[in-house]
C-alpha cells in the first residue's frame, strides 16, 4: 500500500515537472474548416520553432468561429467570408474593441460536371453559370453554353444542378460570385454560407457533391479547387472580367488577389470574386484570421503578432504544397503594416 502511494505520488510529481517544463503559452482559436490543413501545419511548424508558444485550432466552421471569438471563448477566430457590419458591431459591443481581418491564403471554387459524351474542359460564361443555377438554362445545348464551347457536342439533356447542403465557405464564394455577375441572383438569392437555392440537389461536403455528380448524368455543381485538384476531378474554365476563359490553378487564384490588391480596403474585408486581371480566376477568395485589436494579455498579443509576421513570410512557403494559393506580395506588405494595429 505504501509502495503504491509512493508510486502514485511519484507519477504526479513527474507529471507536474513535465507540465512545468513544457508549459507553453496556449492560444486558442476556432473557425473555418477550409483552411484547417494549412493552419494545422503552420501552428505545428511555429511551435517547433517557438517551443514556448502553442496554438490550438478547432475547425468548427466559420459561423461558430465568429460566434466563439465574439463570446470571448477563444483568443482568435477564422472565417471564409468576412464578418458583416452587424457582426463587427456585436464584437465591439461585447468585447469593447475592434476585430481585425488578416487574409492568410486563398481558395477557389470550380464548376465540375458530368455530361455524357463530353470529356474535355467546358467553358462557362458568367451568364451561363447564373442561368443554370437560377434554373433558367435547363438544357446542356442551350445557346449560352454552346456558343462558348464551339466544337463540343453538347447533348439536348436536362441539366441537374448540385450544390452543397451543408453551410460552407465554398458556397459563400460561389454565391458571392453569382451575386456579382447577376443582378437577378443578387436580388433573388444573395450570398451566404447556405442559401435558398432556386433549383438543384444538395450534397454534404465536397465529397457529397462530387458523389452526386459522378452518379447523375447531365449534372453540374461546384467544389473547392483543392478538393478537385487532389482527387483529379475534371472541372471547367470560367470567363473572367477581362473576357478570358481561365481554368483555375493556384497562379490564377493568386492573380485574382493581386488584381484586387490596389483597391483593397484597410480592413481587408473584401471579396475578390470577378477581380480584374488578365489571368485572374474569377471565383477566388481570401480566407481570414480574426484577431481582436486589443489583447488583455501582453504575452498572447506578442505571440499572435509574432505568428502573423511568420505566417506572412516563411509560412507562405507551405501553402502551395497543400494546394492553397499564396498571398500576392502587395497584400503581404499591407498586412505587415496592419499587424502594428494590434495592441
Amino acid at each position, binding site marked *: 500500500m505504501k509502495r503504491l502511494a509512493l508510486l502514485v505520488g511519484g507519477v504526479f510529481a513527474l507529471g507536474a515537472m513535465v507540465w512545468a517544463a513544457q508549459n507553453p503559452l496556449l492560444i486558442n482559436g476556432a473557425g473555418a*474548416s477550409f483552411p484547417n490543413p494549412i493552419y494545422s501545419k503552420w501552428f505545428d511548424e511555429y511551435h517547433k520553432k517557438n517551443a514556448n508558444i502553442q496554438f490550438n485550432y478547432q475547425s*468548427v*466552421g*466559420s*459561423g*461558430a468561429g*465568429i*460566434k466563439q471569438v465574439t463570446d470571448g471563448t477563444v483568443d482568435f477566430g477564422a472565417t471564409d467570408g468576412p464578418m458583416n457590419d452587424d*457582426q463587427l458591431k456585436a464584437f465591439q459591443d461585447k468585447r469593447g474593441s475592434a476585430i481585425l481581418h488578416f487574409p492568410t491564403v486563398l481558395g477557389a471554387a470550380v464548376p465540375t460536371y458530368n455530361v455524357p459524351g463530353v470529356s474535355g474542359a467546358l467553358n462557362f460564361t458568367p451568364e451561363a453559370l447564373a442561368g443554370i443555377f437560377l434554373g433558367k438554362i435547363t438544357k446542356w445545348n442551350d445557346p449560352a453554353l454552346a456558343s462558348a464551347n464551339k466544337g463540343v457536342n453538347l447533348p439536348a439533356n*436536362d441539366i*441537374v444542378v448540385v450544390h452543397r*447542403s*451543408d*453551410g*460552407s*465557405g465554398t458556397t459563400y464564394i460561389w454565391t458571392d460570385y453569382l451575386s456579382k455577375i447577376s443582378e437577378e441572383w443578387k436580388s433573388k*438569392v*444573395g*450570398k*451566404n*454560407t*447556405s*442559401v*435558398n*437555392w432556386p433549383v*438543384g*440537389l*444538395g*450534397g*454534404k461536403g465536397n465529397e*457529397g457533391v462530387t*458523389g*452526386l455528380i459522378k*452518379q*447523375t448524368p447531365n449534372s453540374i455543381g461546384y467544389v473547392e479547387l483543392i478538393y478537385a485538384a487532389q482527387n483529379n476531378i475534371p472541372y471547367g474554365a470560367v470567363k473572367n472580367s477581362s473576357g478570358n476563359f481561365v481554368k483555375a490553378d493556384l497562379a490564377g487564384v493568386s492573380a485574382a488577389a493581386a488584381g484586387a490588391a490596389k483597391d483593397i480596403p484597410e480592413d481587408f474585408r473584401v471579396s475578390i470574386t470577378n477581380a480584374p486581371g488578365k489571368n485572374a480566376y474569377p471565383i477566388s477568395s481570401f480566407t481570414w484570421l480574426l484577431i481582436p485589436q486589443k489583447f488583455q494579455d501582453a504575452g498572447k498579443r506578442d505571440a499572435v503578432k509574432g505568428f502573423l509576421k511568420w505566417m506572412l513570410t516563411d509560412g507562405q512557403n507551405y501553402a502551395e504544397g497543400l494546394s492553397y494559393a499564396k498571398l500576392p506580395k502587395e497584400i503581404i506588405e499591407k498586412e505587415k503594416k496592419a499587424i502594428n494595429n494590434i495592441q
Partner: protein
Amino acid sequence: MATAKTTLPNAGPVTGSRSFLSRLRDGDEIARLVTMVFAATVVLITLLLVYELWTNSALARAKFGLHFLVTRVWDPNIDQYGALPFMYGTLVTSAVALFIAVPLGIGAAIFLAELAPPRISDTLQFFIDLLAAVPSVIYGLLGVFIIVPLMRTVIFPGLNKPLGFMPFFKGPSYGVGFLTAGIVLAIMVIPYIISVSREVLLSVPRDQREAALALGSTRWESTWKVVVPFAKTGILGSVFLALARALGETMAVTMVIGNTPTISASLFSPGDSIASVIANQFTEATGDVYLQALVELGLVLFLMTFILNGLARILIVVTTQRGSGVPT
C-alpha cells in the same frame, strides 16, 4: 422488456418489519437509493434537454410563432425560416420506412421464433444483431452506391411506367429522394423489429401454443391466431422503437435524400428532413435567429417524437383492452 413480467415469478420487495438500519446493512436500502438516483438522472436529462431547446430557440419562437410550423421558406439571407418541408420529409421517409419494414420484420420474426429450426434461428439472429450494430453512415454508403443508382435505372422506370398517373410516382427521378431515404431507413430498422419481435414471440408461454394445438388448430393457426395476438403489445413496441430510430436518423438520410426542402407528393422527389438539415447547417449558421431557428427545429423533432410515442401508448392500451389475451 414488457414480456419479462409474464415469465418471471412475482418478486416484490421483501420489506416487512425490519428496521431501516438492518436494511441499510443488508444493502437493500443502498441499492434502492443508488438505483433511484440513476432513474432520476434520466428524467433530469430529459428535462434539461427540453429546457435547453426551449430557451435557446426563444428568439426564433418570438419572431415566427406558430407560423414556423406552416412556413415553407428557409432562407438565411432574408432571415425567414419555416419547418414545414422538413417536418414533411421526416414524416414521409419514416412512413415509407415502416411501410416496408413492418411486414418484412414481423414476418421474419415469426419465421425465426415459430417455424425455423432453433439452430438456424439462432444463427440468423446472430447476423441480425450484427446488422443492428452497423453504424448508420455505412447504411448511407450502401444507399449512395447501390440504392441510388438502382433507383434511377430500375425502380423508377419500373414504378413510373405503370403507376406514373398517380402523383406518388411522378418523375423525374435523380436517384436521391424520399423513397430512397425511406428504403435505406427500412433496411436500418428491420433488424430492430426482427430482434425485439422474435424475443417477444419466444417468450409467449408454451401452454398457449399447446392449448391451441390441442383444440385442433394447425401450426400456422396457432401461430397467427394465438401466439402473435398474445405478443401484440411487444411487437408494437418494436415497431415504435423502429419509428423513433427512423425519425431521428441523420447521417444515412442526409446522404440519400437530396437535401432540398420541397413538399411534393412524388416519392421520387428530393426532399429534406429535420435531423438532416440541423446536421448540415448548424456549424456554419451565422446570425442568432438562424441558429435559433435550427434549435427550434430540434424542438419540433422532439415534440414530434413525443407525440408519436404518446399515440403509440394509446394504441397499445386500446388494442390490449379489446382482449388479445395479454394479461394487463
